[in-house]
């Protein structure tokens, strides 16, 4: 399990989630994104192309981060969901809360 943060030349922060996003590591992701928000970043993409599974705590932290980023005038987009994760977002109706693209590159281009 690992989180990577990279800022592209236009200032968009791309967060990679390798492994899983679950109750045991959600706080680490939250803190990393909140730190970047505190430092002035406003546009975020979380890339799940290397993510195996996400539990409800992981989903919850995405909801929480999205709210905090929006409160600061920013936006959080999601990318790279596999078919099972896409279904999970649809079942929980979270696909209605987030802009979701097939790849991080598509999300970057859309900002």
């Amino acid at each position, binding site marked *: *399990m690992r989180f990577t943060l990279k800022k592209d030349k236009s200032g968009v922060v791309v967060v990679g989630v390798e*492994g*899983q996003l*679950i*109750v*045991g*590591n959600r706080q680490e992701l939250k803190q990393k994104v909140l730190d970047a928000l505190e430092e002035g970043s406003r546009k975020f993409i979380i890339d799940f192309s290397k993510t*195996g*599974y*996400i*539990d*409800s*705590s992981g*989903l*919850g*932290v995405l*909801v*929480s981060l999205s*709210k905090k980023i929006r409160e600061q005038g920013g936006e959080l987009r999601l990318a790279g969901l596999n078919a*099972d994760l896409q279904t*999970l977002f649809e*079942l*929980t*109706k*979270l696909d*209605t*809360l987030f802009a979701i693209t097939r790849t991080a590159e598509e999300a970057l281009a859309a900002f």
Partner: protein
Amino acid sequence: MSLRLDVTPNSMRLDVPSDLGIVGDAVELVASHVPPGTLSPRRISFNLRTALAEALGNAIKYGTGEDPGRVVQVQVELGRDFVRIYVVDDGRGFDTNRVPDPTLPHNVEREFGRGLFVIRHLVDDVAFNEKGNGICLTLRAG
């Protein structure tokens, strides 16, 4: 913190310390010992792992209160075409009928409250013991 999985041809047993940080390792340990062919690799990789992480997370957070002196018990029955997982804590239990629907418009933006809903969609059968401190997840082949 170490985990010890006891394995027989038809079962597994694991005591998980009440520490949210160990949930991922416990899930991997169980999932990686499910015999090939019992469930499809995709159901092991996603459905089983996610549902077990949910059940363990709930048991540790709400059942044992993240008290490092307590444990959550995981027992797994391995059938020819099914896997049945029991997750039991020593807490007071909760009323599973009082969990709100997280997909209702006023709940969608809530941070918490999706765990049971997610579990019900990932496994073939969910049952609880009478006290509400034990959950049984059944995943079938096919």
